[in-house]
């Protein structure tokens, strides 16, 4: 069924929000939220699709007083735990422990990445990166190369690649947080 043909949510917190609007406005956050629980990158979107399928199925049951994103996060959390429960016992216990750690980190950490037009902020910050940083991101995210291969191409070590990527992401995170704060403020 086409997204735009779906009904508006009954008595949502914002009556203007229909299904398609909710998906469009929350998907970047929800996918990143799922990734933030340690789900491997290649499985993030499968779980996110399940989250939005649940929203589709129970669209009229989302409590009016709950913002759809909060409801979606709750569903995402449960689906992530289900996802890890399918793994072996030891791995499952470790993954559940990690989810617990990341959920606490989300609650205790600064709200910087939680709200606002995060993809737009990322686009703006990405443009400010140095060309060599963008090149490294292209190798990792566009070409999906492992650190070992990137290291060979750049004539450096895999560990140096990991450190460089960590720094670039940290720079982006600071920039996004700053941009979102100035937009919201």
């Amino acid at each position, binding site marked *: 069924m086409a997204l735009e043909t779906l009904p508006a949510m009954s008595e949502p917190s914002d009556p203007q929000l229909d299904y398609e609007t909710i998906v469009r406005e929350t998907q*970047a956050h929800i996918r*990143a939220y799922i990734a933030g629980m340690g789900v491997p990158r290649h499985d*993030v979107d499968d779980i996110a699709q399940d989250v*939005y399928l649940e929203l589709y199925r129970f669209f009229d049951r989302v409590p009016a007083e709950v913002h759809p994103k909060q409801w979606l996060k709750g569903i995402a959390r449960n689906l992530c735990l289900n996802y890890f429960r399918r793994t072996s016992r030891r791995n499952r216990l470790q993954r559940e422990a990690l989810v617990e750690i990341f959920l606490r980190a*989300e609650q205790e950490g600064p709200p910087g990445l939680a709200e606002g037009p995060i*993809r737009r902020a990322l686009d703006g910050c990405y443009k400010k990166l140095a060309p060599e940083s963008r090149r490294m991101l292209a190798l990792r995210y566009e070409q999906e190369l*492992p650190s070992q291969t990137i290291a060979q191409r750049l004539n450096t070590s895999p*560990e140096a690649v990991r450190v460089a990527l960590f720094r670039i*992401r940290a720079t982006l995170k600071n920039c996004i947080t700053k941009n979102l704060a100035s937009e919201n403020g």
Partner: protein
Amino acid sequence: MSQLEILINRFLDDRSELAPAELDELIAGLRAEPDRAVQLREQLVVDDLLAQKMTVDRRNFMAQVQQRIADFERTEDEIDNQVSELRELATAQFERPSRWSGNSTWVRAALALSLAAALAGFFLLPRWRTSERRPVARVVAVQGTVTATENQATAALVQSETLFSGQGIAAPVGSSLTIEYDDRTQIRIAGGSQLTLDIEQQTGAKRMTIDSGEIWATVAKQTVGAMEFATPHAVAVVLGTQLHITVTADDTLLEVTEGQVRLDRLAQRDSIDVAANQSGLASETLLQLRPLVWPASTEGLAYAFDPFVRRVPRARNPNTRNWYSSELDRVGSTAVNEFTDALELTGGYFHSQDDGHDIVTVSQGSDGFSLELVFSSAQGDSADPARIVGLAGEDGKDNFYLSQAGDELTFVLRTDGPPPPPMKFQLPSVLGPNKAVHLAITYGSGQITAYHEGQALPTTLALEGSLAAWTSGKLLIGADRGGASPWRGTIEAMAIYHRCLGASELARNVNNYKALARVEP
């Protein structure tokens, strides 16, 4: 760098890379240093945002959700139908008049058997039930003899005929068939194709099994479940889009011009999402996403320019077979459009001695030829022959040329066979400024054929021989070898091949060109 930092970086690199003992160490470290846990979570979030932005198969999430919901709806409908059938079965059992007491052992046994049968029916009925013959689509155009086979009976198709599920369609080389479904989904089936039409019995979703050949589809938005095109190598799952599928013995090529299509390899259990202006290639050994290009193939291509990639004309070096860029020389009133790089001719002409020489050198051994041209004419009603493009020979004879006089086009190709008369033809649409047309002229198998927008024109010309008679000379655009017969108009793109392009390949090139032109700024 601390051990915890190393573990964090490796975890970020690959969530499944750490051994169980290392994962335990990471967990302990994060518990001991909550700030690190916050930092790692933020890294995971930014990592995913970057993947959402940059990784090809993660860019169309909205379409994936749409597909997921369509799959869900289809499954729900299937379950509903199965439950309905089960109810009908059960009702039939209970409504049957019985003269036996319900306490009888026989009756109990019969009820137990009924229940077992009903359960078996629930799981097996959909698979065992033979397909019901249902109307699927109707014929809107047929060229040549295209047949439909059903229950071993074969009949030629005619316009307006209704097509049914289960019918096998055979379109021999040189024929074509266009069919239309109730929702205006239209499929054009090229000559040389074998396929079977079908419909999902439960939902009514459209199905087509393509054993070989080519189809072009404009699929309306599907409301009862995705339309599926199954080939020996993959299944293309479509909700509403424009696409082209080519099936050979080795692989399946899916080209998407609008919307998005999922290409699944069922045996290998992998899939790719092919978006507009991309193509996907599936074979037993690979599943690959590729951008749409014009021309679709550079095999036998001797010279080309286009507004997409070869903005500066390129010719093939006969020695290395590599491409080189080559600016055309200009004489008189001409311009290269600064936005589109199209050649604009207003009395002058373009030429290149080097390009002409190299086109001749790489083409001389061939017995096929093709010219593709995207142009608009500003000639008006002028009845004087004006030379659009030509390749002069140093012996004073032209290797080929195309000219215009009013609405009539003339094409001449030189071979080492007996010289034929010029081929004169008209296009179905009126030539005019700002009305770009795609014209192709091919030579092969003893015949010259012209195509307008990928469709063969009725006029053909018999011709024999190879291009061995060609002699080196200038490539000329907009005038003849003496700079006379000036042609006024715009040439957006041109490709010269030393092989004969087939009808389906030309149709693909037209589609690709249009798709690329739509997205070019």
